[in-house]
């Protein structure tokens, strides 16, 4: 019971940052589903609507993830917050000026790429497996993999920064 009291007593921003992390974990499950379904759809068009729905769900999750990330930016940037702590020392300043900055910029791409991939797949519809659309199919697979790599980089950078100066 004690653990629940302690969890309840965490600050709003600590809980919000954890929720932000949860959305990120959820995206990894959806990326896995999306990549598997891509290859399933290549064998059978019957699963195309599943593929499309997973891409749409992934897009929504990534938009929420970015929105939560921009919101957590408020306590991060606040006076006396993690950014101030990191920039105060030469040894830790690079966590903000290189790692965190890169994370915030890179995070823009995954929702845009997944929306694009979803729109391409939706447009192709029942013609998804046509030989004439091979380059567009490759773009769909490339977009899925590139976005997954971006999310993994962003997550790794987030862990690197928050273990040094967590949001309170």
């Amino acid at each position, binding site marked *: 019971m004690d653990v629940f009291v302690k969890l309840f007593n965490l600050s709003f921003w600590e809980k919000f940052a954890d929720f932000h992390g949860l959305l990120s974990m959820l995206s990894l499950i959806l990326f896995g589903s999306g990549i598997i379904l891509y290859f399933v759809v290549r064998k059978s068009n019957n699963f195309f609507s599943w593929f499309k729905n997973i891409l749409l769900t992934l897009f929504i999750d990534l938009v929420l993830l970015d929105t939560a990330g*921009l919101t957590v930016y408020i306590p991060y940037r606040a006076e006396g917050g993690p950014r101030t702590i990191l920039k105060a020392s030469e040894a830790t300043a690079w966590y903000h000026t*290189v790692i965190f900055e890169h994370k915030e910029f890179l995070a823009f791409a995954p929702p*845009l790429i997944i929306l694009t991939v979803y729109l391409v797949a939706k447009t192709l519809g029942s013609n998804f497996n046509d030989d004439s*659309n091979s*380059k*567009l199919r490759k*773009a769909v697979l*490339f977009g899925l993999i*590139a976005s997954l790599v971006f999310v993994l980089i962003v997550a790794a950078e987030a862990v690197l920064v928050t273990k040094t100066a967590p949001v309170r």
Partner: protein
Amino acid sequence: MEEGYKANKYLISASITLLLFAFINIFKTALPAFSAMLNFFPPVGPLLGVYLLSIIIFLFSLGIFSTVKIKNQSFAFWFFVVSTIAFLLLVFPPIFEPIAHFLGK
């Protein structure tokens, strides 16, 4: 064939948006006045302005490429691949900051 044009439109618009996001970010770093313009909500900072401006660019590009039809599927694919990789590199501070400092001189 019509779906091919539409799909190309999405790929080209996303690619242009990714590249312009990186360039907006470089100009934001190089020009303090531009950064101040993007900083319309100080608690989040100019980053929010960069995001919103890039979303507007995406919607604008979709409008343009609904009229200007790109037929070449291979071009759309490779432009998408190159833009995505270029984006990854151009938003990395050790790469974009020297460019921004050069432009800001």
